[in-house]
Every structure is written in structure tokens, then in C-alpha cells.
């Protein structure tokens, strides 16, 4: 019961999803869409699990009088206010609703700023790690420098062939490497999927036996 049923369900769901790909008939395709809808709905249900986990962790921090417990209140307050605004305000998604304003003026700017930290980190990473220690490392840093130069106008001034070289690197070695990675990854994905469906790989339910 504890292991056989989940493994059987996993097998049936996996087999169906793999086979439906070859059957365009509406009987199968409609079922496929229904099952896909189930999976998405299941994820939506799981958000309550996640939210409870988040609340519990911060509740424990507050109860254990952890150093940063004041900030745990901030998280809980943000969470509760968004859930409250979302469920109490019927038109929560309309522009100008409190839910939408919080999203646009708190979540969006913080996330956009976190994203823009990359401009700083890309520089510090290049300084720290781009060392011509080996042939491979040298190739990596030379290719990166050429492409960087080729993207800005100064590149043309340094040497007129830099933009063309950039294009060539992107279209030839880069393309070949990407395709190779993609094929390998495809096989890896398929093997992992197959091992899950057949119950060979069971780590997702806590391992074998």
C-alpha cells in the first residue's frame, strides 16, 4: 500500500503521458488535457503546503526568540496581507486594486533590483574566476572577451573584424556545443524519466526498499 500504489500510479500516469503524444484522436487528446489540468490543479493545492511550511518556519523563529525574529513578523505580515487582499477583494487583479498595487510597487521593484545585481556580479565573477590556468580556461576567457568587444561600438574601433569574429563564434562553435549539450541532455532526461516511470529510480518517494 505505501509503496506499491504510488509506484503503480506513477507508472500509469507516465505511460499515458508518453503514449498520448502519438495519438491525435480527440478521445485521447481530451483526456490528456484533462489530466494535465489535474496536474496543474494539484500544484495549486500544494501552495497551501508551501505556505504552511513558510509560516511554520517563521513561527518557530519567533517562538525560539531567534535574533532576527522581528523580520519574521515582516514576512508573516506581507504574506497575510497579500492573502487577505487577494481573497477579500473580489477584483483583486484589476489595475489599482490594493493587491495589484502591492504587487507592482513592492514585489516588482525588489525583484527587478535583485535581477539587476547581475550587472555587478558578472564583473566581479569575471575578475575573480577568468584565469588562463589551462587551455580550456583560456579559450573561455578569450571567447568571452571577443564577444564582449563585438557587442559595443568600441569593438569596431579596436579592429574592424571583431564584430564579424563575434558573429562567427556565436554561429559556429557556440552552436555546435549547444546542440551537443542539448542532445546529451535530451538522452539524460529521457533516461531519468524512463527510470522513474518503470520504478527503477525511486528517490522521489524516499528511495528503494
Amino acid at each position, binding site marked *: 500500500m505505501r509503496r506499491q500504489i504510488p509506484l503503480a500510479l506513477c507508472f500509469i500516469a507516465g505511460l499515458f503521458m508518453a503514449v498520448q503524444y502519438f495519438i491525435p484522436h480527440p478521445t485521447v487528446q481530451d483526456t490528456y488535457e484533462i489530466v494535465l489540468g489535474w496536474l496543474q490543479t494539484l500544484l495549486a493545492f500544494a501552495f497551501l503546503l508551501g505556505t504552511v511550511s513558510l509560516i511554520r518556519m517563521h513561527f518557530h523563529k519567533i517562538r525560539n526568540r531567534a535574533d532576527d525574529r522581528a523580520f519574521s513578523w515582516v514576512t508573516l505580515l506581507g504574506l497575510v496581507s497579500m492573502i487577505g487582499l487577494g481573497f477579500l477583494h473580489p477584483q483583486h487583479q484589476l489595475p489599482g486594486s490594493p493587491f495589484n498595487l502591492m504587487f507592482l510597487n513592492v514585489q516588482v521593484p525588489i525583484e527587478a533590483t535583485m535581477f539587476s545585481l547581475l550587472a555587478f556580479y558578472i564583473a566581479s565573477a569575471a575578475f575573480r574566476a577568468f584565469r588562463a590556468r589551462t587551455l580550456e580556461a583560456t579559450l573561455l576567457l578569450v571567447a*568571452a572577451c571577443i564577444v564582449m568587444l563585438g557587442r559595443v561600438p568600441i569593438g569596431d574601433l579596436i579592429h574592424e573584424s571583431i564584430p564579424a569574429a563575434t558573429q562567427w563564434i556565436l554561429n559556429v562553435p557556440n552552436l555546435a556545443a549547444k546542440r551537443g549539450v542539448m542532445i546529451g541532455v535530451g538522452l539524460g532526461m529521457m533516461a531519468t524519466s524512463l527510470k522513474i516511470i518503470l520504478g527503477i529510480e525511486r528517490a522521489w518517494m524516499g528511495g528503494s526498499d
Partner: protein
Amino acid sequence: MGTIIWTTIGAILTLSVYSFLYKDNPFYKFAEHLVVGISAGYYLVIYYYNFIDPNVVTPVFQLRLGDQAIGFGSGAWWLALIPGLLGLLLYTRFFPKVAWVARWSLGIYVGGYAGLGLSPVMQARVIEQIGANALPLTSVTNVLIVVGLLGTLAYFFFSMKHKGILGVFARTGIVFLMVGFGASFGYTVMSRISLLIGRVSFLLHDWLHLV
């Protein structure tokens, strides 16, 4: 007026995040904890209204009297009970004694997506990629692309020692991989700086009206 207040809030939070570049501090902690809470709440609400409400609640509780096909696909209302039931099974995790029942739902979820990782992947990532690479060896560029792909594939051989001809190919593969990675790195820099320009423009133009 409202706009100014909201813009100021956004600007202060923006600066709080940038303060992390100097070191961890209470401003960053505040912004971090706030955005985790707000975004977690946001997604809970959005997923409820986009999936649970139309796929379970509406068909089961509001339209059960009408006997036309409702909800998603062409299923009847009782079909909507299934995802609802699977979803509720997940909540057995709150009760340690029956927590293992949640694995039934997880089994369907994991198995379903594993199945989707089989056939479409073979098409898009393997067959079509080989087809795109079946180039006539009539130019240096084509020769390099074919050699590069074969080399990269050779690099990913696990069950043989990289010696002899396989070793030569695998070495070639690493060369292509590294040039490719360097190129992607260099190519990305510009768009990341554009993001930073965008944030600085928000601070200097939209908020402070300096420029």
C-alpha cells in the same frame, strides 16, 4: 499624490536591495523578508484563482445542477472531483500517521511529468537537433559544426575511458564547449547592464526627476 508615495516606496526598496552590495544590513533584511512574504501570498492567490477555482470549486459547487459539460475539456462536473480529491490527499501530510497517502498524488504528478519528458524530448532535443546538424561538408563552417557536435557528444560518453579516438573527440568537444560558454557569457553582459540602466533610470528619472 498616490503615485508619488508608491514610487517612493519602490525607490526605497530598490535602494535597500542595493545596500546588500555593501553588506547584509537591516534594510536588506526588511526588503528580503517583505518580498518573500508578499510574493508567497501573491502566488497562493493567483494559483487558487487560476486553477482550483475554475477546475474544482466552480464545477463542483456552483454548476453541479446544470448537466452540460463544464470545467476543462469535455468532462462532466464529477470529473472535477478527481483533482480536488488528489489535492486534498496532499494535505494528509499534515497528519504524520497517514502522511504516506500523499504519495499517491505525488506518484501521479511525478509520473505524469516523467512521461512528458520522454517522447517530446526525443523529438525536440534529439531527432530535430541531429537533423539540423546533418549538413553537407561543403564549407569549413559546416565541417566545424559537425566536428564540434561529434566532439561534444563524445565528451558525454560515460561508460568508456576517454582514450584513443574517443579521447581525441572528447578533447575537441571540451574546446568547443569552452568557446561556446565564453561566448554566451560575453553575449549576456549587455542585457544585464541594460537592466541596471533601467533601475538607475527609475531612481533618477521616475523618482527624483533629476534627468
